């Protein structure tokens, strides 16, 4: 064995938060080791689905159904999964997990350099104090140890770096960010925005705030509007670790990237009372190696980071590292979604749009903002958009021959969708644990997930259906169809919690700096840290928390405290 290599910092995971941690730590002068459990992905070259047309895909986009049923039973449900992106999703057969048979949980994952930052939906919404004060207000969960003022400068910092396009609206519960020019709404979206605004005071529908560049930004090109970002973008026009943070980290000369490196556990030295490194299993050879550093950042995804901590046991921490509170693994959350309404929007038949816009609309939360709703706590927002139907409508309308072909040459009716994204209460009984009876191929106990919606989430979805239909009707819609697709937890891919932040070491795992109460040189900055979910897409908040935590870690190291 060669002598142990010690780094200043180890970052576990190369996705949205791992990339940010690598950038911040290296730019602050730390020799940083970035560990990624999956394969390397080269920016551009490995985006093998990019710019493919339907006829260039073996199944024209319908997918290799037999393969999916065999190996991708969970992943293949994801909207971003397909013939063009399958290489960015894990095989469920190779990476199994358990859940209760009556409580389905969909864990959508991509194990490769860049992680899910390659396939994410890019929506970026700041939280406000309505969100940071929510737990304290109604008593579910523990109070956030931070407020909007703590995070606002860090939102500004990360938005400035990644590039977020959007429209400033001055909505108190959805603070404006530092925006690049917004993408355009189409004719129907403009009309819906105006009509909803006129009919319902305080309800604002804006264009999606998205980490897609509408002008050149920091050496990255503006969007070329090919459409499906999640195939990867060789012009780097949307934010991913590979387009943005990792190149910055590499440029410092202080980053070492090690792929195929599965972190089995964090090493804890009882005498020093510190985390000293990680134990890594090589994904290919399955050999174990120990790697050391002064600070450890877990950015392995909500459940990935918690799995590592639960698997890091010692006499002092028999139930998982930094788990003196017993909160580790508990308070798992996800957004409840896929409930809303769709309507046909008459009156714009002579209008259309040009091009493929990788973005939709966002209608900010309006429930439990000014006055309490009688049926549920917290709130929801609507993502959606308008489009004209295409050739598929020919399947449900009678018609054959030249007449059918001529009819489908024209775009179909305008449609408008409002899909709710609702907040999920933090509850102790939604949790994960290790299944020691069922280790994976690398000898690591599988995660066993126990998670289901509560009445509050059910009522949120019900209200979202009803208000979506009301607003579409007020906006002039007809043939309104409401829906609730019964999406199980996990499927929104906004899984959060299980190593929550809090003020009290007895009830939370992390402090207000994403730093373990029990182990000060251990940081968790991904979704595991979340003490509540709000209803906004969480990634930009993870980024801001990560950058802020890195700043704190560096300052503490300089002070000699770490």
């Amino acid at each position, binding site marked *: 064995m060669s002598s142990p290599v010690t780094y200043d910092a180890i970052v576990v995971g190369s996705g949205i938060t791992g990339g940010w941690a690598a950038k911040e730590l290296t730019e602050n002068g730390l020799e940083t080791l970035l560990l990624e459990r999956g394969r390397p992905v080269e920016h551009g070259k490995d985006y093998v689905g990019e710019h493919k047309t339907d*006829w260039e895909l073996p*199944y024209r986009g319908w997918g290799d159904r037999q393969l999916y049923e065999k190996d991708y039973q969970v992943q293949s449900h994801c909207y971003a999964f397909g013939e063009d992106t399958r290489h960015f999703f894990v095989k469920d057969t190779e990476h199994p997990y358990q859940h209760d048979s009556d409580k389905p949980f969909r864990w959508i994952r991509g194990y490769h350099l860049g992680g899910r930052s390659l396939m994410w939906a890019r929506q970026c919404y700041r939280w406000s104090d309505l969100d940071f004060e929510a737990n304290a207000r109604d008593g579910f969960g523990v109070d956030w140890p931070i407020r909007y003022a703590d995070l606002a400068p860090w939102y500004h910092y990360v938005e400035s770096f990644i590039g977020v396009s959007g429209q400033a609206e001055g909505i108190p519960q959805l603070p404006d960010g530092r925006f690049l020019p917004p993408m355009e709404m*189409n*004719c129907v979206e403009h009309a819906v925005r105006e009509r909803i605004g006129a009919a319902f005071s305080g309800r604002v529908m804006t264009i999606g705030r998205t980490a897609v560049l509408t002008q050149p930004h920091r050496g990255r090109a503006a969007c070329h509007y090919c459409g499906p970002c999640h195939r990867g973008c060789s012009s780097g026009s949307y934010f991913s670790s590979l387009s943005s943070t990792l190149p910055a980290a590499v440029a410092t000369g202080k980053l070492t990237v090690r792929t195929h490196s599965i972190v089995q556990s964090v090493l804890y030295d009882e005498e020093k009372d510190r985390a000293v490194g990680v134990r890594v299993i090589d994904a290919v050879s399955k050999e174990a190696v120990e790697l050391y550093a002064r600070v450890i950042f877990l950015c392995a995804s909500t459940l990935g980071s918690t799995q590592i901590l639960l698997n890091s046991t010692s006499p002092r921490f028999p139930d998982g590292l930094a788990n003196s509170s017993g909160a580790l693994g508990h308070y798992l959350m996800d957004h409840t979604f896929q409930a809303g309404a769709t309507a046909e929007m008459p009156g714009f038949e002579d209008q259309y749009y040009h091009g493929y816009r990788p973005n939709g609309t966002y209608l900010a939360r309006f429930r439990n903002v000014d006055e309490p709703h009688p049926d549920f706590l917290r709130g929801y927002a609507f993502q959606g958009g308008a489009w004209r139907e*295409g*050739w598929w409508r020919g399947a*449900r309308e*009678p018609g054959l021959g030249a007449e059918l072909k001529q009819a489908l040459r*024209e775009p179909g009716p305008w449609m408008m969708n409002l899909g709710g994204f609702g907040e999920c209460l933090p509850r102790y009984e939604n949790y994960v644990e290790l299944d020691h009876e069922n280790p994976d191929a690398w000898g690591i106990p599988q995660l066993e997930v126990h998670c289901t919606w509560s009445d509050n989430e059910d009522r949120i979805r019900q209200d979202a259906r009803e208000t979506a239909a009301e607003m579409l009707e007020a906006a002039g819609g007809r043939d309104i169809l409401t829906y609730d697709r019964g999406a199980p937890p996990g499927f929104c891919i906004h899984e959060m919690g299980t190593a929550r932040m809090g003020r009290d070491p007895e009830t939370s795992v992390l402090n207000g700096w994403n730093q373990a109460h029990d182990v000060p040189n251990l940081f968790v900055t991904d979704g595991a840290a979340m003490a509540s979910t709000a209803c906004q897409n969480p990634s930009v908040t993870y980024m801001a928390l990560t950058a802020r935590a890195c700043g704190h870690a560096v300052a503490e190291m300089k002070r000699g405290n770490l």
Partner: protein
Amino acid sequence: MTRRDVLQGVAVLLGGVLSSSVAGAILGCSPRRVGSAGWRPRTLTPEQNELVATIAELILPATDTPGAREAGVNEFVDLLLTDWLDAQGRDGFLTGLAGFESACQAGTGRPFLELSHDEQMTVLVPLDEEAAELRQAARAAGLTEVDDPPFFLTMKEWTLAGYYTSEIGMTQELQHLRISGSYAGCRPLAEVGRSWA
């Protein structure tokens, strides 16, 4: 070997008597396309392939742009039958195709391929109306799929998908840009022209 010998040989090979149009298509003495160069169906028999290609062409015919036959819809159908469906789904489609043919013969006294174009359309119209009704009922019930769909519903869906995802369907019949370069939210339809594929 004379052409007649060849025809008889093929007929024997296929275990039956061929209608002239099928034999013509198989032997390439008709201008009608049965597949890309070098392509051979892996699940469909040559007769079934011709029947599928014919129905598809009736649904989306050549007009001022090529139709379903030229766009290779039958190849797409054979791909789905061979690699996409499981054995049960494959059998279901082929049974439906056979049922379609026997219902046609029971109703008209002749094989579908021997009917005139107008006679063929007369067979398809009620099946198309039934399929559309089932689709609309499913949609009203909030479902994306029709339970136990009849043959023609599937055949029309596959024809639409096979055609409008083909290069012909996307670029000649509709319009498609690999990279649109920009996005304009409101533009007169007359300027944009056809539907985006």
